[in-house]
């Protein structure tokens, strides 16, 4: 597999605080790499190191096959676009002027690509409205448009859906998927809104306390996630006796509901419950969410 980004025991310390502690990860080419972790886990620090905003205190990384200590890394950095924390845009300028600024910075020969970029992010009809007067979603999309100037091979998005309304979240999600599918841009996206990330990512990296806890593809995650049958009955005591006899794993949620982690023969279960007078009120199957998987990996206690 070809990787666009590989980190090797990357470390970053701020005085006595260790933000990254020997982090190693690999982002495959063409993937949408979901970078999952709690606040303060080190997601943004890693992105800052990759973007060259800060220097690692230990370890190294490789971008498009070039080591970070190599002077050629500056050229390779031109192949990425990034939105780190907040969109990097000039509030006093219009969307078009912001893109012109980035075109000038990159030294691109003309402004021909600007209308297409504005169209892509849905900002083509903003006219002379300055970015200051944009909604949060529009600013975010403009930030992505700026990051897309110069047709990067990799897009780094740090918490791109933070603070957006449901409509804004859908727009950003669709834009990311479009960029990945149509332009084959590798996307590294960090988020702690896991449900949203699960709708996008093809690969995951779970980070906790500055370390990668686990890296896996979406297929591997699906296999690893346990299927659960959520059942509602009139009496969970009777249910637990039957389930114990059947030898299946389960978790009682309250007096009437339980999650069963096994493939069940519903008819058999209903028949088994009948002698004790326990009624099955509802049954539905659900996947263990990315959230539950993450909690099972890093534990439930808060670091904040």
């Amino acid at each position: 597999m070809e990787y666009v980004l590989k980190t090797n025991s990357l470390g970053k310390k701020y005085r006595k605080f260790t933000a990254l502690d020997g982090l190693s990860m690999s982002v495959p080419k063409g993937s949408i790499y979901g970078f999952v972790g709690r606040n303060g886990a080190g997601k943004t620090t890693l992105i800052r190191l990759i973007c060259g905003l800060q220097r690692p205190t230990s370890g190294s990384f490789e971008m498009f096959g070039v080591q970070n200590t190599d002077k050629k890394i500056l050229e390779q950095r031109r192949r990425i676009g990034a939105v780190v924390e907040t969109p990097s845009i000039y509030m006093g300028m219009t969307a078009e002027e912001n893109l012109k600024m980035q075109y000038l910075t990159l030294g691109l020969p003309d402004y021909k690509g600007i209308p297409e970029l504005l169209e892509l992010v849905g900002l083509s009809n903003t006219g002379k409205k300055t970015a200051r007067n944009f909604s949060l979603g529009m600013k975010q999309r403009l930030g992505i448009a700026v990051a897309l100037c110069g047709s990067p091979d990799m897009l780094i998005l740090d918490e791109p859906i933070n603070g957006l309304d449901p409509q804004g979240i859908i727009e950003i999600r669709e834009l990311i998927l479009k960029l990945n599918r149509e332009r084959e841009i590798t996307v590294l996206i960090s988020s702690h809104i896991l449900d949203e990330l699960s709708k996008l990512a093809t690969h995951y990296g779970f980070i906790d306390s500055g370390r990668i806890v686990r890296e896996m593809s979406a297929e591997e995650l699906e296999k690893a996630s346990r299927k659960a049958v959520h059942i509602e009955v009139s009496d969970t005591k009777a249910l637990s006796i039957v389930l114990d006899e059947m030898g299946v794993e389960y978790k009682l949620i309250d007096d009437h509901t339980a999650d069963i982690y096994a493939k069940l023969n519903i008819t058999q279960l209903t028949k088994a419950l009948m002698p004790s007078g326990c009624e099955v009120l509802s049954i539905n199957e659900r996947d263990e969410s990315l959230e539950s998987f993450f909690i099972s990996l890093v534990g439930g206690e808060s670091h904040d």
Partner: protein
Amino acid sequence: MIKLLRANFFKLFCSWSFWLTLFILPFINIFVIISGDRTYKGLEPRSGLDRWNLGMCGETCFSHLMFLTYIIVLLMGMFIGDEYASGALRNKIIAGYSRTKLYFSYLIAGVCESLIINLFCIAVPFIVCCAKYGFDGDWGTLGLMTVSSLPPVATLTAFTILCIIFAGDRTSGMVIAFLTDLVMYYFFDCFFLSKLINEPEKVSAAQKKLYLIIDALLPSSFVEWLYVFGMKAHDLNVTHAPKCGWCCITLAVMTAAGLMQFRKNDLK
């Protein structure tokens, strides 16, 4: 570097603060001319000094220098500080430029902005004065004063940029620059200049030289000096040239300190 400068100048020319300052600030000097003319109007002109001329030149074409220290802080906050506040600095680093190139592109664009405003503030009132009242002063001295105003203006700009870089934040950087300018100037005024003026007999020749050097090293006090003593045209050739040189040393130190800090700093 050229690409960065093009981008910075594009931003500069899109900035309302630049154009507003450029067109409003000369009015300070123009108003001083008009009020000066009213003062001299009733007098019988016996020499050129009784009308608007070189004698008033320091009060007219250079009046803006009194405020330029603070205006530079505001302008750099709006220009360079905005790069930090908007996060646009990140885009330039991700675009693959070295920090040295980035720093010098900001310094050059910032200094150019300050110098353009300074020169515009000198040129516009001068043209107005010439058209309205005529000019019978010494062109050489006027030219020398203009040239002499450039190093302290550039140094103040470099100092403000250093403060913004040091703080890593627009507002804090502006506050640091503003307060340091004030404190430095009044410290010198309190401990050196007042002694030099009020008790000159107690100041030895060596001390006097030292005071002048310290005075010249502080760009804000130099700007003040240029304005207050502008009328002493005859002294200019003697005292201005070495002071300008000293100010350039401060400029070099500020530039080096800014570069070191910019290269070292972790950015957000």
